[in-house]
């Protein structure tokens, strides 16, 4: 299954990646090869088999509604690139 430049650009944009022309070419080829490899799976007849989302045989892992201690704010914020008055500080989100 071949992938076109447009799809590579789209995937890059969704991942917030900026690609050079060379990279776009490289990834287009690599992604196509990967998809081609996986397309072998389509040869299997899966009629009547429900889609599997988890392979481990576990169900219903719950916790009770009990409050447990949170982290110290200083510890949390010291890991952040920037902070102000107890908040995480981030670049503006909307373009003008």
């Amino acid at each position, binding site marked *: 299954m071949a992938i076109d430049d447009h799809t590579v650009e789209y995937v890059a944009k*969704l991942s*917030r990646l900026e690609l050079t022309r060379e990279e776009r070419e490289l990834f287009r080829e690599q992604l196509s090869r990967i998809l081609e490899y996986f397309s072998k799976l389509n040869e299997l007849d899966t009629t009547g088999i*429900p*889609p599997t*989302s*988890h392979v*481990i045989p*576990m*169900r*219903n*892992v*719950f*916790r*009770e*509604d*009990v*409050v*447990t*201690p*949170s*982290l110290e*704010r200083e510890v*949390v*914020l010291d890991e952040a690139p920037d902070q*102000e*008055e*107890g*908040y*995480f*500080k*981030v*670049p*503006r*989100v*909307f*373009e*003008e």
Partner: protein
Amino acid sequence: MRENATTKVQDEFEIVIGLEIHVQLLTASKMFCGCSTRFGAPPNTQVCPVCLGLPGSLPVINRKAVELGLRTALALNCTIHPQSQFHRKNYYYPDLPKNYQISQYQYKDHPPLASDGHLTFEFDGQARTVRIRRVHLEEDTGKLVHVERDGTVLYSLVDYNRSGVPLMEIVTEPDLRSPEEAREFLSRLRTLLQYLEVSSGRMEEGTLRCDANVSLRRRGEPLGIRTEVKNMNSLRAVEKALSFEVARQREILQAGGEVVQETRHWDERREVTFGSREKEEAQDYRYFPEPDLVPMVLDPAWIEEIRRTLPELPEERRRRYVEQYALSPHDAALLVENKAMADFFEATIKLFPQPKTVCNWLLGDVTGYANTHGMEFTDLPLTPEKLAEMLKLMEDGTISIRLAKEILEEMLATGKDASSIVAEKGLVQIRDEDALRAIVEEVIAENPNPVRDYRAGKEKALTFLVGQVMRKTSGRANPDLVNRLLKERLHG
């Protein structure tokens, strides 16, 4: 205000509204971690590796949140799916630090918690049924504060205390036909959620949020192009925003134009909706099953247990109040709408078994006091015992209705009980005939003209004289007694 914006359309267009309601669930801890959900804590003090999306942390489902979701689904007559699971909804916005929200997507093979329900209510004298498309669980996002200078956003500050708070999304089918009906539906749903003890339902505080999809179509035609209206923070805002949006779309369509499919925000101050300036791109959320959460397979016994323990719901209670207590349908509806008040009513009539009287005081003076002071009913320092005591004092004639109103006001202001207010102020009704007779004499002596008028047959003059006696006694005289004493004296 545009002409007739809020009235039902009489023209060729039919209004089509569907609602998407987000409800913060009343749990102590978050959806997937043990951080507190308490409102109003200093920023970023209720966070941990899970709700901060730190690498290696793993979410675990809060059982109580699932239970509250199931409770709602049952009350909304939904089909509960025996197996359900969570999905990742991927997007870039710093309100969630993981770059995705854990939510439930509508896949055939992994459905959300529940779907295909309905809520029936009375509107405009008719029974209306609004279909519920689905009820699902997800996590709330953090809060952003945009720091501006001269109207330009410089940067944003993020508080993750709300990140991961359990949220339930309720989506209706586009079955609502007017802004008024949408408001009524939302009000009924809110009351239902309060009865279920699933949500505090305070729109102003954001524990209940509502978005709406609105479109118009010519009768009999397929659905028109819709807009999504956001940022409506009260029932009133929902009705106003939808009315505005309906009028706006109608103008466009009548002029032969086309509605643009977009998200529009309600501006409460200017009372308009406006399109967001951001580019409207088709969002690609790339939903996929959340690998960190294994599926839920709901035990039918658990669902039955929840069904069995559902409380009396507002519709049933309304009916019961009319049948059992002979309240008018209007009063019953008003009382039931406020669960706290309805519970209070029931506790009071156990102590003072006159439902009609108790209802009148609650809907009248008590509600009036709360409204003028901008308070919630639950903020008032009144208890069923205190109200019943006051009503008993009134019933046995210790205080008049007029005094009762004054005393109640003081009770609400100070939290004191009626008997101590009566004792403190010497407010006990004067029923001593001799004491009153002396005052009656005074009033007759001071008002020769009305006395003459009354004797000449003007019944109204008596009312004036009774009023004078009441004034001299600061309202403490028993009006019936005064009436009798005056008549005896004037006829004699």
